[in-house]
């Protein structure tokens, strides 16, 4: 077996998430590819919590569909996660025997899993450790026992984790783990399902989540200022900065509100430093005015929006891709603001470095549109060679240019050399008011038109940057998928499965989601007769934006649903199968279009 998806749920104190953390840390150490997502009820403490861990000997693109293993410390909590923890007939179901429910009576209507094990998890924990706190360690023992995963690394991790609490606790946990393993040995699965070892060439991996990756990438990219306000699910970015940025000669500010957070970041940029802010949908709404100021003042600024369910407070702890309209369009006046979307923890690094480069090169605010899943899931990442990245700096005026300096000078490419306080001769007035080349206020319609044209012109090269788009599959495929953000990972797996089935399909994943790169979509859609733009939102916002700017083939439709309702690779494959079958039909209306 080369791929294993484990889902676990319990109540807050059960330690189910820390069991997942132990498992993925051990897997990363051993060289497995792995991914972990956490999901919680809205309570701060207690309440239901769950995690899903996927281990594989191959690269994985998403947290997986149906569970191979389901662990329920109690059924009430497990069931609250619904489609996030889907059980099928081949799922190995492990649950707390104390619940008193017979294996035939487990509350999973519509499925009859072959292997169902009531396990006295609490009793085993008490027996081994004298406390039910070791329940999660028993679960780890069960999983290691049945699936042969990372035994030594899990034990090593446990002993590291509990080392500071004394040898007695380490030993108690080792006993709990051993009891779990023993139970698994004594109750074999109907068919043995041992996990393969990762290939020897697969070295130890990085393990982190998208928020920490974004913050680390920002510091690598030269960011020395962060201003923000706590908001789920982006606060970890500010936490990383407030811990680290001082070491790099920078500063971070937890501001009094979202406007002050972005305001301070914009001030730092005006002062010559690379700066960022981070937020989620409700904060984006509040930051909109200062994003407009950054656009007209032509100041580099990176804004991270970790999308969650909306509108308003919505569902703060679950992913959705419904802020794209806001990221692209929320502004008064004519504004073009690049929007980049990472699709995984790994490429959050590339996208963040790119966001700073675009911001600095074009003197513009840039939005990184992440989502709760990418931002908060943990993922193994192969070590990244940072030497392959070019770090761009804003174009500063030369001494000659400073002799007759005009901050907003009309240049051929629309980018004007930018000075900053402290630079003699570069003195100018930054402003939200329309201005002439020297930065002086104007109400001239002619000047306003010229400046608008400049602010759009400077961004024109961005849409031709093919390396910001990832296309896989046969170039002439008649089936096409487009996906952005975390759903791209689901589509990558759907692509692999569909191709294995013999379907002729290709996939376009844009990092640059706005402005729309018309040429790139036109080329991609040229061969496409049917397909889907796959998104986790009610409206399918990218699909609608593509229709604004490009010719989307009539057979390409939006496949979308509201956030917190995961889309599984299998569903997309089924859609593609149907679409392929429909293309086989001699439908004259489609043929006549050729």
């Amino acid at each position: 077996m080369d791929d294993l998806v484990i889902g676990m749920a319990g109540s807050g104190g059960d330690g189910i998430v820390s069991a997942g953390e132990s498992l993925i840390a051990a897997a990363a150490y051993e060289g497995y590819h792995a991914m972990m997502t956490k999901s919680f009820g809205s309570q701060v403490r207690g309440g239901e919590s769950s995690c899903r861990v996927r281990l594989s000997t191959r690269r994985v693109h998403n947290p997986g569909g149906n569970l191979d293993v389901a662990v329920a410390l109690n059924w009430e909590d497990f069931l609250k996660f619904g489609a996030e923890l889907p059980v099928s007939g081949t799922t190995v179901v492990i649950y707390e025997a104390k619940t008193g429910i017979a294996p035939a009576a487990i509350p999973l209507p519509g499925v009859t899993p072959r292997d169902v094990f009531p396990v006295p998890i609490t009793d085993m924990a008490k027996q081994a450790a004298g406390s039910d706190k070791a329940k999660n360690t028993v679960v780890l023992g069960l999983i290691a026992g049945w699936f042969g995963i990372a035994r030594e690394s899990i034990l090593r991790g446990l002993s590291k984790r509990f080392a500071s609490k004394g040898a007695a606790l380490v030993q108690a946990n080792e006993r709990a783990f051993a009891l779990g393993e023993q139970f698994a040995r004594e109750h074999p699965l109907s068919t043995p399902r041992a996990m393969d070892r990762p290939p020897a060439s697969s070295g130890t991996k990085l393990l982190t989540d998208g928020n920490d990756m974004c913050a680390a990438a920002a510091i690598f990219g030269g960011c020395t200022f962060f201003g923000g306000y706590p908001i789920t699910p982006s606060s970890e970015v500010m936490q990383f900065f407030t811990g680290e940025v001082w070491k790099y000669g920078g500063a971070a500010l937890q501001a009094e509100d979202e406007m002050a957070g972005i305001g301070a970041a914009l001030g730092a940029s005006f002062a010559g430093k690379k700066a960022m802010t981070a937020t989620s949908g409700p904060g984006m709404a509040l930051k909109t005015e200062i994003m407009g100021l950054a656009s007209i003042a032509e100041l580099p600024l990176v804004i991270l929006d970790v999308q969650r369910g909306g509108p308003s407070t919505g569902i703060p702890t679950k992913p959705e891709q419904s802020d794209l309209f806001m990221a692209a369009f929320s502004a008064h006046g004519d504004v073009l603001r690049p929007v980049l979307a990472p699709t995984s923890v790994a490429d959050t690094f590339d996208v963040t470095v790119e966001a700073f480069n675009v911001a600095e090169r074009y003197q513009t605010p840039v939005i990184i549109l992440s989502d709760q899943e990418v931002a908060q899931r943990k993922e193994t990442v192969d070590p990244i060679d940072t030497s392959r990245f070019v770090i761009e700096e804003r174009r500063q005026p030369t001494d000659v240019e400073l002799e007759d300096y005009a901050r907003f000078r009309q240049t051929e490419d629309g980018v004007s050399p930018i000075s900053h306080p402290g630079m003699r001769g570069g003195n100018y007035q930054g402003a939200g008011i329309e201005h002439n080349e020297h930065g002086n206020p104007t109400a001239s319609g002619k000047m306003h038109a010229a400046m608008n044209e400049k602010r759009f012109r400077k961004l024109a090269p961005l849409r031709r940057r093919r390396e910001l788009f990832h296309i896989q599959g046969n170039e002439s495929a008649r089936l096409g998928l487009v996906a952005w953000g975390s759903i791209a990972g689901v589509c990558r797996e759907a692509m692999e499965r569909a191709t294995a089935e013999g379907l002729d399909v290709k996939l376009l994943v844009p990092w640059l989601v706005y402005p729309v790169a018309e040429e790139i979509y036109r080329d991609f859609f040229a061969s496409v007769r049917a397909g889907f733009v796959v998104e986790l939102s009610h409206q399918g916002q990218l699909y609608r934006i593509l229709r604004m700017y490009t010719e989307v083939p009539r057979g390409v439709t939006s496949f979308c649903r509201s956030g917190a309702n995961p889309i599984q690779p299998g569903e997309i494959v089924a859609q593609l199968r149907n679409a392929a079958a429909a293309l086989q039909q001699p439908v004259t209306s489609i043929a006549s279009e050729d």
Partner: protein
Amino acid sequence: MNLSSQEKLVPLQAKDFRSDLKPIWCPGCGDFGVLQAIYRALAAVGRPPHEIAFVSGIGCSSRIPGYTTAYGFNSVHGRALPIAQGIKLARPDLLVLVAGGDGDGFSIGGGHVPHAIRRNLDLTYIVMDNQIYGLTKGQLSPTSPRGLKTPTSEYGSLEDPVNPLLYVLAYGAHFVAQGTPADMPGLAEMIEAAIRYPGFSFVNVQSPCVTFGDEQSQVKHHRAIMKSLASVGHDPSDRLAAMGLAQHYGTELHTGVFYRNPTPPPSLDALVIERQKAMAGTGLPKERILDAFLQK
């Protein structure tokens, strides 16, 4: 303010801070006097214009940075203080001035004032308080007196004004002063003292609106009623006495320094520099920052 980078030995003059831009203000506007006072104060302090960042919000008075030769930032309504704080945190070596009107500071941007005060970055905030919204043609402002008739209070305002002096004193500002263009040299001295004060300093300027302001708020009237705090024997190190006097905002026109903490605490920018020094070199090299995530 840190004067260590003062590099010019040739003394700067007020005219070195005057830009070519002609103010949009109405003839007789109080802000002209404030601008003169700022030129004088900056010349006396002696930092060259390119080492000064002058941030404002929106309103008649917020046009002021453009009339100086400093780096200016005429930002958006109410957000001058956050932007200025970002500048100061990023570049503590700069002299940072913030200016705006009473609406900018005590209405739309009111939420930022307490936090700027408690953070105590070394910057100077000058409010040109005219008790009216001039740029939008005369509506009520947060400091308009009760009973004032304006286009949005046809039958007289039913609300009490904010008391800017009491407000900033209550939030713990370490330097609080009030002036009027009716005494421009006095105002210039006060602004100079505020700039030199090491930490957040606040200067409220009663700056008349000649077009929409009432007669009681004009310079001529100021000359008749203004009373220097020194002349009433006020000790500016006495915060409670300052609060007592500040209660007369709106009825009396006290000028001078209400409060000046004689033992100023370290400013935030000084603390940040200290922390940066202490932590320098303790992080992973930037190109190896991802090693922090390596499973060892």
